[in-house]
């Protein structure tokens, strides 16, 4: 918290809004589903990192806490993305809508 000013928080918030706007814009121009999946997941991970690092002050915690929380979060995010790569295979197996 030491080095974070209210201005930094506002900038982080602004970035979160901009990244969300990009995601929504990609939906608006109807990017193909596979591209859409990869790009929104990528952008969402960036947003999650911004929230954890600045809003949840993880950047300013002791290394031991960071090393406990971050790998667990990485595993959790990997867990729920587990089946999506199979979706790409599914495209070639059937008419996938």
């Amino acid at each position: 918290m030491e080095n974070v000013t209210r201005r930094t928080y506002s900038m982080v918030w602004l970035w979160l809004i901009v990244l969300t706007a990009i995601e929504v814009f990609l939906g608006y121009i109807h990017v193909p589903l596979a591209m859409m999946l990869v790009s929104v997941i990528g952008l969402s991970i960036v947003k999650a990192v911004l929230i954890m690092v600045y809003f949840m002050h993880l950047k300013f915690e002791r290394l031991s806490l960071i090393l406990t929380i971050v790998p667990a979060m990485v595993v959790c995010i990997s867990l729920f993305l587990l089946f999506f790569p199979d979706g790409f295979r599914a495209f070639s197996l059937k008419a996938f809508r």
Partner: protein
Amino acid sequence: MNQTLTTNWSGGVSPFGIGHKKLGMWLFILSDSLTFGALLMCYGYVRIASEAWAKPFTFSPSIIFSTVMTFCLLTSSLTMVMAVAASASGERAKMVKWILATMVAGLAFVVLHLIEWQHLIAEGLRPFSVPAEWGANASPMFGATFFAITGLHMLHVLSGVIYLGVTAARKRATHEDVEISGLYWHFVDLVWMFVFPLIYLLSIK
């Protein structure tokens, strides 16, 4: 290396350098993210295993509506860090005001979300059936995943609003308590950062 060990792993009474309450909240956040992770994994599985998946959300008004909801939640995270910053500098009155702003934004999210639910239910979406217009072979599991994931998230937002209200009302709440309620609130925001694209943006008509 040795210095890293002694500064960061020196253990003693407080190996993580934070109070037991804050560590408890972090551990809760880890277990809760696994709960949401499991639900989102089920969603991925069901969606990929289904022959067809409904894409009911029109860009206007559905996606615009849920984008406004996302905006409410993101803004509530900003007001929450402002509350924590005010509490850090000992300005209690300011802290209470920021927390109230956070609660208003959180409640706005819940109200908007319920309006959206009401529209979908009026269209004929049920936990185990989808409206016939959404496609002849559209998986009926759309409703189950939608209501389970967004419902559990909405429950988290509601309990967060109550939790923040209690924190703001308690005269004896310390700075650490405010910070911990902030951690919970940001986590709820964090979950939505994944729910919004996966549930809404991947199902645009």
